[in-house]
C-alpha cells in the first residue's frame, strides 16, 4: 500500500465522497480478471493496481501500479479526487449500508495485520444469523468515528481455530491480529444480543487496547522467513518482481519484492483523464472484456 498517498489526511477526507474498494490481489480468480483489464491488460497481474472508476466501473483516471504512477503527490491526488466528486455530485452523506466484510476469517486476520488494525469477527451458526448480526454492526463500522479503523469478517465457530481465546458462540469477537497475520488473539467478546451502543463502545475499547508490533518492510520479511511463514494465495502469484513468479526478474528494490512503490514516476501526470477534457484512460474506452465482466458480476 502506498502510504505516501493513502494515509494522508486530505486524501482520506476526499475518499469519503468515493466508494473505496481495496481488493486482495491473488486471493480471487474473478477479481484478478477484472484487475488485469485496468492496467497493462496483456501483462501478468502485478501485486498492486490503482485506478479511479466511474459509478459504472469504467476508468476515468488511467490505471497504474500505485497512485505514485498517476499523481504528482497527495495534494495532486486530492485535487483530482475533489474534481471527480464534484462532477458526480457526490458527497459523503450517503454511506454504504453493508458491513465491509473480508471473505474469510483467515484472509481477514492477514489483512488486519497488514493494516495494523484490529479485527471484528461476526460469528453466527448459519448465513442468516451472520447476515443479521453483520447488519447490526454495519452502521457502527461506517460511523464517522470508526470508519476505516477496523477490519471486519464473518464466520462460524469452526472458522476460529487461528483465534486464541475465542468464544465460539454467536456474537462478535474483537481480535488483535498477530504480526504475520496467521493468527490472532481475542481481546473482547459481545453476545449476539449486543446493541449498537455496545458495539461502538467495544470497537473503541479494542482500538485503544491494540498495540501492533511494527517492523520495517525488510525486517518483517526477513523475520517471517526466519519463522517459517509461508502464505498460500488463492491463485498463483504472477508479479514479475516476485521470486515465486514464473516470469520473475532479479530486480529487488529497496523495499523488497513487489513493493507497491513501483518504479520511479516517470509517467508523471496522465495526459488525458478527468479534468483534462477527456475521459480517455491509457487504453482508451473501456474494453469489451471489462464491460462483460462487470455485467456478469451484477
Amino acid at each position, binding site marked *: 500500500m502506498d502510504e505516501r498517498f493513502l494515509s494522508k489526511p486530505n486524501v482520506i477526507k476526499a475518499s469519503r465522497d*468515493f466508494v473505496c474498494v481495496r481488493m486482495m490481489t491473488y486471493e480471487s480468480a474473478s477479481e484478478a480478471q477484472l484487475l488485469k483489464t*485496468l492496467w497493462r491488460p496483456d501483462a501478468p497481474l502485478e501485486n498492486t493496481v490503482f*485506478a479511479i472508476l466511474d*459509478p459504472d466501473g469504467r476508468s476515468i483516471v488511467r490505471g497504474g501500479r500505485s497512485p505514485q504512477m498517476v499523481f504528482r503527490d497527495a495534494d495532486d491526488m486530492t485535487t483530482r479526487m475533489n474534481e471527480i466528486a464534484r462532477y458526480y455530485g457526490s458527497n459523503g452523506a450517503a454511506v454504504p449500508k453493508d458491513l465491509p466484510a473480508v471473505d474469510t476469517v483467515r484472509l481477514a486476520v492477514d489483512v488486519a495485520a*497488514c*493494516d495494523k488494525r484490529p479485527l471484528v469477527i461476526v460469528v453466527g451458526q448459519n448465513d442468516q444469523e451472520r447476515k443479521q448480526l453483520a447488519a447490526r454492526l454495519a452502521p457502527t463500522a461506517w460511523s464517522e468515528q470508526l470508519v476505516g479503523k477496523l477490519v471486519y469478517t464473518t464466520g462460524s465457530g469452526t472458522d476460529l481455530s487461528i483465534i486464541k481465546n475465542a468464544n465460539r458462540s454467536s456474537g462478535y469477537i474483537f481480535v488483535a491480529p498477530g504480526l*504475520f497475520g496467521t493468527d490472532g488473539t481475542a481481546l473482547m467478546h459481545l453476545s449476539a444480543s449486543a446493541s449498537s451502543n455496545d458495539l461502538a463502545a467495544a470497537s473503541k475499547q479494542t482500538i485503544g487496547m491494540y498495540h501492533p508490533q511494527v517492523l520495517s518492510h525488510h525486517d518483517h520479511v526477513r523475520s517471517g522467513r526466519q519463522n517459517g511463514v509461508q*502464505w498460500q494465495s488463492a491463485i498463483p502469484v504472477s508479479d514479475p518482481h516476485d521470486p*515465486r513468479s514464473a516470469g520473475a526478474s532479479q530486480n529487488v528494490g529497496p523495499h523488497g519484492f513487489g*513493493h507497491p512503490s513501483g518504479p520511479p514516476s516517470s509517467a508523471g501526470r496522465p495526459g488525458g483523464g478527468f479534468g483534462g477534457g477527456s475521459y480517455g484512460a491509457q487504453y482508451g474506452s473501456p474494453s469489451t472484456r471489462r464491460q462483460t465482466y462487470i455485467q456478469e458480476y451484477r
Partner: protein
Amino acid sequence: MRFILSLCVLLGVTFVFLSSNSAFAETDGIGWIPTWKQAISEASKAHKPILLVAAAPQCAGVSGIW
C-alpha cells in the same frame, strides 16, 4: 543508581513505543470495501465514483505486510 536510571529509560522508551503504536491504530483511515461485488453495487446505488486499489496481503510469501 545506574540500574534505576536504566530502568527509567527503558520504561520511558516502552511507553513512547506503546503510545505511538496505539496512536497508529487510532488514526483515521480510508473506509475500504474489500470486494468488487459489494463496491460496484454500492457505487451504482449511491452514484459515487470508485477509488480502486488492489494489493497482495503478503510480500514474497510472508504475510502480514502489503
